[in-house]
């Protein structure tokens, strides 16, 4: 009874002890202590680059009082002799959701939700939640605290990972006291992402929509600050502005999104700190160029199950290579000189943290860089380097006591001190007793007692003659010892059981032998234990970094590991389709030099130029696809609103898409990447050249005109979306017209308001709110942005021409335009081009009158006519589709070829530099095995800007290399699995193929 009371009393004492905030009343006698401790004889790592031997750390009131060698310990300190054990600054994790509520997953819904469901005067969009303060939702979760502390973390930045603007994060220690005490900064940082989180609202439905939304939010917040608040009260914008002086963090899902987030920040003068996904090594140069600091996970993938050779085919090469190379990511970042901190986030099991950090070190990350990434860098990034990250006077007493080098496999974390409070991770032994001892048990001498392993958890063995006998041992914190072992290897008669204590370097006590005889025993220290690490383990300590596979650009099948460059080349003796007045020239040479077509003629030569024999082959300008959706990340339609002129495909170009390579193999050199057709006014296009391996920005055609997608008909009125989609305006072709009339009326008013304000002398009053949607429309009105309009039936084509005339703009191109043949004369009069399918029809109501003669008829009337794909597959044989216009309507072969080369170049305003074989134009050319309009023709060589991006011969070599690389990694995975590493079932990531009408299962 008495004992129980004592126990309870002990717990209460602890509670009171932890309950020590100024304003809080206390129950009982005040028990305030200064918590003064002196840690002596420590190997003290005061920061990531300074180590002091036999040093002392003094802490008082939760802060560091002094740290250094040769320190006198004043009276009043509790002394702890660390006997050479290490002290490191407490680790810091910047990406946690520690002690935060779960984010609810949005329930699946049927039908649109156009408005925010959130109560109160907040943002119009549910995913903009800057008013969220993690600090207000902080409720201590002791289990999470213990888990993180056991890894060595003392401080975390915690936020609620919900929405695009996620609000503020709080900087808190892992002390299990009151939230008031553990909070270092209530609002320490702001977080953002491209993920709309729990929002049930439709907008945004795409990555480009998320980007546009965040951009517009910056503009709105600026307007709000400058007087907009007089017109609209908005708690979200208010909060958004208040967070701007804090460090700005951005969480992304992959390497390309690192680049996208950084670019967005650049626009508003913000340097985000970006939480990456661990694949940054795949675009290291571009990521270095962002100058962003990163927060990087160590959640390296497990090996995949590769037993079944057929199922292995299902594993993408990118996943295989990432498995091999992910552990080298931190080393690659360090080598590139990129500032980064490490986070434990993303690990399925946090216990893997140290294994994986060590793995990163084995793969080349220097120890001090690792320590920096866990202490100094995060402290610096969160602007708390005056409190955290190193051990200096006045800083928080956050530190860990370890047995060895923090990164050593032998290391044990004993204690994790947080704000001067001690948390035991593993019992700190009073003495490190590892060593070799002369053992005497009763009368038996000549034995050795071997104490090895970790200082905190030593392993014991008895060496008797040739036998090494395993010892079961327990050691208490108060230095009591129990050992039990069989007297010899074959013995079945029982164990010698010894009980004793540790006294300096001697272990001794009493025991009972297996036979039952009482004995005295003593083990006398003779020498230090030489860690006999098995040779095998030693070699495993450093991964064979040299044997790792190479990073390819892009990180996909058929990527290349060295950048391709332009050559000077003469293609000899080919049938040259010039697309100029010279027409087809037989037995002709073409010289390409410095990325341009230099000469077209006979018997050309240039010193040093490579010669390619074109005898019997055809040389044409490269194919340009006026309507493509390849190379786009996460959504081609921002389909939540009828007008989304603010979104830009250029923000989401995906350089890693295998279809870029496949299209090069079909002779395509450039594409207009279009927004989809879900809205009357869709998003802005990206014009790219298919530079396989280049970064998204490098692929964009410099100084190309801006384009935008419009759409008419069934898709924009959601005719085939199902019953639930009868809400969004417009639902009829009548409504579609009014969407345009309204949008351009607003755009004109906007332009006037802007002009008026900007030209006013004193700029008095609130500036008009910048509106990204209307800005794009104003560009159209001013001939600075050009329309490609998805269209089918004649009435709607006619309608848009009328709207354009009445509003004072031009339609540049009607795309699809399957009934263009019915209004070709009107199109000609308006000066609009037509970019159509060769022979698609029948799949929906509005294509019932589509005919394969459409191109021929438009061409006949004088409309600039192109054939497009809208399809990653058809895109790689557009030459054949052009061939069909010869068959359907009798277009001449040269004119037919122009429909996929020169004419799309004209429609995209690129014909001054692309689309024909003419000196001075870009060397975007294709060498075909056969007549280029024939089904038998293969693109053998495709040049873009004079660079041979596709070469049939090289392709065949790459196929072999790809097979070999897969086999190599499969073998390595099997080795890893046989070595005991975790394995996962294979998974095949399906390449996303977009069509312009992709809105969720509905195509075309």
């Amino acid at each position, binding site marked *: 009874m008495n004992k129980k009371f004592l126990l309870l009393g002990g717990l209460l004492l602890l509670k009171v002890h932890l309950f020590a905030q100024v304003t809080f009343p206390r129950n009982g006698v005040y028990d305030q202590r200064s918590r003064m401790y002196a840690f002596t004889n420590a190997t003290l790592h005061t920061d990531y680059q300074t180590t002091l031997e036999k040093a002392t750390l003094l802490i008082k009131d939760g802060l560091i009082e002094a740290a250094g060698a040769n320190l006198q310990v004043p009276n009043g300190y509790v002394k702890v002799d660390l006997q050479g054990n290490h002290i490191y600054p407490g680790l810091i994790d910047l990406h946690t959701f520690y002690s935060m509520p779960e984010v609810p997953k949005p329930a699946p819904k049927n039908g649109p939700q156009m408005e925010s469901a959130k109560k109160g005067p907040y943002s119009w969009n549910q995913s903009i939640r800057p008013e969220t303060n993690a600090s207000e939702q902080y409720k201590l979760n002791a289990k999470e605290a213990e888990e993180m502390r056991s890894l060595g973390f003392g401080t975390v930045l915690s936020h609620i990972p919900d929405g695009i603007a996620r609000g503020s994060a709080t900087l808190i220690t892992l002390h299990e006291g009151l939230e008031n005490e553990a909070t270092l900064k209530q609002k320490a940082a702001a977080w953002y992402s491209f993920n709309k989180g729990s929002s049930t609202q439709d907008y945004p439905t795409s990555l480009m929509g998320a980007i546009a939304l965040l951009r517009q939010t910056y503009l709105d917040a600026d307007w709000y600050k400058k007087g907009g608040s007089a017109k609209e009260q908005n708690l979200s914008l208010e909060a958004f502005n208040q967070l701007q002086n804090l460090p700005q963090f951005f969480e992304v899902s992959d390497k390309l999104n690192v680049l996208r987030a950084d670019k967005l920040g650049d626009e508003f003068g913000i340097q985000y700190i970006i939480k990456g996904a661990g694949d940054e090594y795949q675009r290291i140069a571009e990521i270095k160029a962002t100058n962003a600091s990163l927060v990087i996970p160590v959640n390296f993938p497990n090996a995949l199950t590769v037993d079944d050779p057929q199922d292995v085919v299902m594993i993408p090469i990118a996943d295989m290579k990432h498995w091999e190379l992910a552990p080298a990511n931190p080393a690659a970042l360090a080598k590139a000189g990129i500032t980064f901190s490490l986070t434990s986030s993303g690990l399925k099991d946090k216990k893997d943290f140290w294994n994986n950090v060590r793995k990163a070190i084995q793969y080349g990350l220097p120890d001090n860089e690792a320590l920096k990434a866990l202490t100094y860098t995060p402290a610096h990034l969160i602007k708390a380097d005056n409190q955290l990250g190193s051990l200096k006077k006045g800083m928080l007493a956050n530190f860990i006591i370890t047995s060895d080098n923090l990164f050593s496999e032998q290391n044990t974390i004993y204690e994790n001190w947080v704000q001067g409070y001690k948390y035991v991770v593993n019992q700190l032994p009073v003495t490190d007793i590892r060593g070799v001892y002369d053992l005497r048990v009763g009368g038996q001498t000549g034995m050795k007692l071997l104490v090895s392993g970790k200082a905190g958890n030593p392993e014991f063995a008895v060496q008797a003659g040739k036998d090494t006998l395993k010892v079961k041992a327990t050691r208490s914190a108060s230095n009591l010892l129990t050992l039990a072992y069989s007297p010899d290897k074959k013995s079945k008669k029982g164990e010698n059981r010894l009980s004793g204590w540790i006294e300096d370097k001697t272990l001794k006590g009493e025991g009972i032998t297996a036979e039952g005889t009482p004995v005295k025993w003593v083990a006398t220290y003779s020498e230090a234990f030489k860690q006999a690490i098995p040779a095998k383990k030693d070699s495993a300590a450093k991964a064979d970094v040299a044997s790792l596979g190479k990073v390819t650009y892009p990180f996909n099948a058929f990527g290349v590991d060295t950048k391709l460059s332009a050559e000077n080349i003469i293609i000899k003796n080919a049938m040259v389709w010039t697309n100029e007045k010279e027409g087809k020239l037989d037995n002709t040479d073409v010289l390409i030099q410095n990325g341009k077509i230099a000469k077209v003629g006979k018997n050309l030569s240039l010193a040093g130029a490579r010669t390619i024999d074109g005898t019997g082959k055809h040389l044409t300008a490269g194919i340009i696809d006026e309507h493509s959706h390849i190379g786009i990340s996460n959504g081609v339609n921002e389909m939540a609103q009828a007008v989304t002129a603010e979104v830009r495909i250029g923000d989401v170009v995906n350089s890693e898409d295998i279809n870029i390579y496949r299209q090069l193999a079909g002779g395509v050199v450039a594409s207009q990447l279009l927004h989809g057709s879900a809205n009357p006014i869709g998003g802005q296009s990206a014009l790219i050249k298919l530079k396989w391996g280049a970064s998204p920005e490098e692929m964009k055609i410099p100084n190309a005109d801006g384009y935008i997608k419009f759409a008419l008909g069934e898709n924009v009125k959601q005719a*085939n979306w199902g019953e639930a989609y009868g809400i969004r305006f417009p639902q009829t072709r009548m409504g579609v017209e009014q969407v345009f009339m309204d949008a351009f009326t607003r755009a004109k008013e906007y332009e006037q308001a802007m002009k008026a304000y900007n030209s006013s002398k004193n700029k008095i009053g609130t500036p008009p709110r910048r509106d990204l949607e209307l800005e794009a429309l104003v560009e159209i009105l001013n001939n600075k942005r050009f329309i490609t309009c998805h269209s089918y039936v004649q009435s709607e084509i006619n309608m848009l021409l009328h709207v354009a005339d009445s509003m004072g703009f031009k339609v540049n191109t009607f795309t699809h335009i399957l009934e263009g043949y019915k209004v070709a004369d009107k199109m000609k009069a308006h000066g609009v081009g037509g970019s159509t399918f060769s022979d698609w029809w029948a799949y929906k109501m509005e294509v019932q009158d589509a005919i394969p003669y459409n191109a021929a008829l438009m061409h006949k009337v004088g409309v600039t006519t192109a054939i497009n794909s809208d399809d990653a597959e058809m895109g790689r044989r557009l030459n054949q589709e052009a061939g069909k216009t010869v068959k359907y309507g009798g277009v001449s072969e040269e004119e037919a070829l122009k429909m996929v080369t020169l004419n799309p170049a004209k429609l995209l305003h690129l014909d001054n530099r692309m689309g024909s074989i003419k000196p001075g134009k870009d060397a975007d050319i294709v060498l075909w095995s056969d007549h280029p309009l024939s089904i038998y023709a293969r693109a053998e060589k495709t040049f873009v800007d004079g660079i041979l991006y596709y070469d049939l011969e090289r*392709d065949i070599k790459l196929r072999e290399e790809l097979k070999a690389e897969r086999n190599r990694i499969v073998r390595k995975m099997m080795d890893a699995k046989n070595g005991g590493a975790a394995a996962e079932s294979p998974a095949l990531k399906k390449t996303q193929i977009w069509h312009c009408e992709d809105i969720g299962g509905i195509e075309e």
Partner: protein
Amino acid sequence: MRALFTFIYCIFISIHLIAQPPTPGKPQVKAVALVGGTAHLGNGQVIENAIIAFENGKLTIVASAATANFDRSGYDIIDVSGKHIYPGLIAPNTRLGLDEVSAVRATRDFSEVGGINPNVRSLIAYNTDSELIPTTRANGVLIAQVVPQGGLVTGTSALVKLDAWNWEDAAVKEDGIHLNWPAMFVAGGIWYDPEPIKKNEGHPKILDELSRTFADALAYSQVKNPSPANLKLESMRGLFDGSKNLYIHANYGKEIIEGVQFAKIHGVKKVVIMGGEDAWMVVDFLKENNVAVIVSELHRLPTRPEDDVDLPFKLPAMLSKAGILVGLSYPGETKNYTNLAFMAGTAAGYGLSKEEALTLVTANNAKILGIDNQAGTLEKGKDATLVVSSGDLLDMRTNDVTYAFIQGRQIVLDNKHKRLFKRFDEKYSTK
């Protein structure tokens, strides 16, 4: 609501009034001879300056002018000098006549509810007046397999002639039952954020259900007048006596093996693999088991990023060269079928000779579908189902069909596309 239906109904009525598919060809009354052309027999052989004659719908002379002792009298002579003659192409795996406007539910008749529907027959729903039939045959397709789709056992397909007054006239035969092999891998996630494809956990359960159906059907087929009668099991009798094919639609290598073995175990006599994207992984298995493959469209993307970029194009050659009987189809949307000739052309661009490629869509398809006694090649005694093209039929650059005959009946080659072309070509020509 009723008003709306009436309204919609009226729209369709009016469309039908406008639309005028050409009148079916009249039965052959007089013998016809095509002279001077290059005949591609569909079995790999070519006859230059050929005489192709037919009477009462059957081929009577298939020979070179140089060797044939040909008396012109009694024949309608058609001079096809410089032109090419081919057997009418056979398009497997279509939904022709069952799918008019794909996006409009009222016009879709190809997918029945329920998982096991062997008794559902495409033939009786086949609409001979579909506007898509004349456009399909415009490039050389004269026979099609019309296949119910959807579910596991999708139904009984029929082979039809693409020129008929009604489905009875159109019918060649009801040729087999179609089975969509249950997938071993399934996709996860949502469309804009796809998750990795995972193993289909439901696979064993579905297989079990299929097994029970096939075992029951085999047992049922061994009884003369079973009671109670079961329409589903009844419709499967032909699988066990060899009068009907079992078409297993499967793409992945292991699914192909699993499907074929399943059919064998359950006593199915004739098995055909439809699709077969990954059939190249299991060529030895297919050959050992003597299983034919009707490859699906070649104009598709490779299944995986790591696949050779031209893998779909060269698949027929890979299988043919391994000794497998290969047919070719262009399934999916109705607009595809007219381009079947160019699928063969593609195969010819990637490893087969042009004549070998032609056999895929003629002799081989006929053999696999079980109509090689009457169609698929130009041989004496077979149906006079053939087309004449000004140039190479397999290349879109030269494909230009000027004559077509089905069982000797000359087909009107007009279609909706040509009518609209004519109308607007005239509009712009008179300006």
